[in-house]
């Protein structure tokens, strides 16, 4: 069980970093500690529109602040972008099962679009816990305009950054899964994935074909609560027994081989 709690705190900053893409930042409340891969349910402290909280991976914990990377695609993510500093927000968390990095020389982080979000904090903690390990980020977007710059705060976190776009307008041409396949090089790397469901499904298939074990994917599902009560966030289990898992409790980080994609 994760030690989630309810925090009502003011938003500190909204920073737009790419088309539709922005950081929400909060001062980290005293007593709040979390691991990479944990998520929080974010909602306005006085719910209206949006009504339900949204599950967001912790993007980074740095400089006494909590950082969440979002993309304005839906009702809540568009609304959050327009918030002013000081807006009272409710954070419920940390929730879920975080990443559990194995002891490897190479850690390969595969991000599709806004699936980049959890990898800043993961890389930061890998730097501390696995000194000397090489941290590689493979990062794909459909278009150049949505590519998040990684210089400054994010730049020092990754030893290698390879970018991909569908049309090659930023970085290599093709999807990040194509890029990942090119890295199936026999090195015993730890693989991490986060991104849209079709991307993760494709990546899971390629990793499995290559005999990669122990990969850790951070998935996303619709949730109303985030702590095992509403029973909305079902992911079908490959074993079929039980038929579903609740992603909020047995996730969001999962072994892709356990999922019926």
């Amino acid at each position: 069980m994760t030690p989630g709690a309810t925090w009502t705190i003011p938003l500190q900053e909204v920073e737009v970093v790419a088309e539709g893409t922005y950081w929400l930042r909060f001062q980290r409340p005293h007593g709040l500690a979390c691991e990479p891969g944990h998520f929080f349910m974010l909602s306005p402290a006085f719910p209206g529109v949006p009504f339900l909280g949204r599950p967001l991976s912790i993007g980074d914990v740095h400089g006494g602040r909590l950082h969440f990377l979002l993309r304005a695609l839906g009702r809540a993510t568009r609304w959050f972008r327009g918030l002013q500093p000081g807006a009272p927000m409710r954070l419920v968390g940390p929730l879920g099962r975080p990443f559990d990095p194995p002891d490897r020389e190479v850690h390969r982080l595969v991000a599709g679009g806004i699936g980049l979000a959890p990898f800043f904090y993961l890389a930061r903690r890998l730097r501390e816990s696995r000194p000397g390990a090489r941290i590689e980020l493979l990062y794909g977007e459909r278009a150049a305009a949505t590519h998040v710059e990684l210089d400054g705060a994010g730049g020092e976190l990754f030893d290698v950054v390879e970018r991909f776009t569908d049309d090659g307008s930023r970085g290599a041409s093709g999807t990040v899964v194509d890029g990942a396949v090119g890295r199936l090089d026999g090195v015993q790397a730890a693989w991490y994935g986060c991104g849209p469901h079709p991307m993760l499904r494709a990546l899971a298939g390629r990793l499995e074909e290559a005999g990669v074990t122990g990969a850790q994917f951070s998935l996303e599902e619709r949730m109303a609560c985030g702590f095992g009560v509403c029973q909305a966030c079902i992911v079908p289990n490959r074993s079929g027994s039980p038929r579903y898992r609740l992603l909020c409790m047995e996730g969001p980080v999962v072994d892709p081989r356990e999922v019926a994609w």
Partner: protein
Amino acid sequence: MVDRLATTCGPLELANPVLAASGTFGYGESFERFWPLDTIGGFVTKTLFPAPRDGNPAPRVAETSAGMLNSIGLANVGWEAFVRDKAPRVNELRGSARMIVNIAGNSPEEFGEIAARVEADNGAVRCDAVEVNVSCPNVKEGGTNIGCHLDQFRDAVRRVRAATGLPLFVKLSPNVADVVPFARCAADEGADGVSLINTLYGMQIDIERRWPVLGTGSGGLSGPAILPVGVHWVYKVRAALPDLPILGIGGIANWRDALQYLMAGAQAVQVGTASFVNPDACPEVLAGLDRWCATRGSSIRDAIGAAHRAGEPAVEPVWTG
């Protein structure tokens, strides 16, 4: 001196009038991380069937204006697993909080079956009351909702009443032209009270995909959007059946909402969907009701049914914008 928050709902004595509603509180253990369970007057378990159910395909929830739709499909661990795995743990946690077991079946016969199992196992389970969820499809009768057909409704309630002597509350569906005949039927069949309301039918269409959002098409609407519907039916049932105990449910997100239900005639309330958004909703509602009592030097019992008294209020309405 009786505590200012204490209330009774028929045979159910409650330390305070705030309960957590079925389907929004797991089996009682899920909020342990947020606050002690004995903070509230009680809780209602997720609906339990005789056998476990996986529930419906995804997506199971969709946000609406001031609310949400769900089509969870009454996923539950089944009665046996509840008795074995859930009840012992929650009994350690709950202290004075009342445990109300919510039950359902796929036919009136199954309602009788599950009620008999509650009765048989209650030495171990130690629940304080049973709440019957009639808002589920009758599989044998072509999937029509038992709670919307008076004959099936009566059959199910009668079988439950025959099977158990525990305090019995029947949770009524608002998806009917008039809820009052269902409340009257429940009373006639020996129920100790009614819980109202359950969710309203609803659908959301994804205009990009030109297809319903929920995996099942339609679902149940809950949240602040349905508050006035619930208050309406509590008021109507109280007016028609003044002696029938009522647990008020539907869209309660703060103490003012809860007070509306009490004034409409409920003896206690259940907080549901609000707990998804704000896990502290139940204790916050309770704290607000306590402040309301303290400010007026009154007890919460003074509020119950207050909107029904004869004559116009002495105070003129003021529009505060």
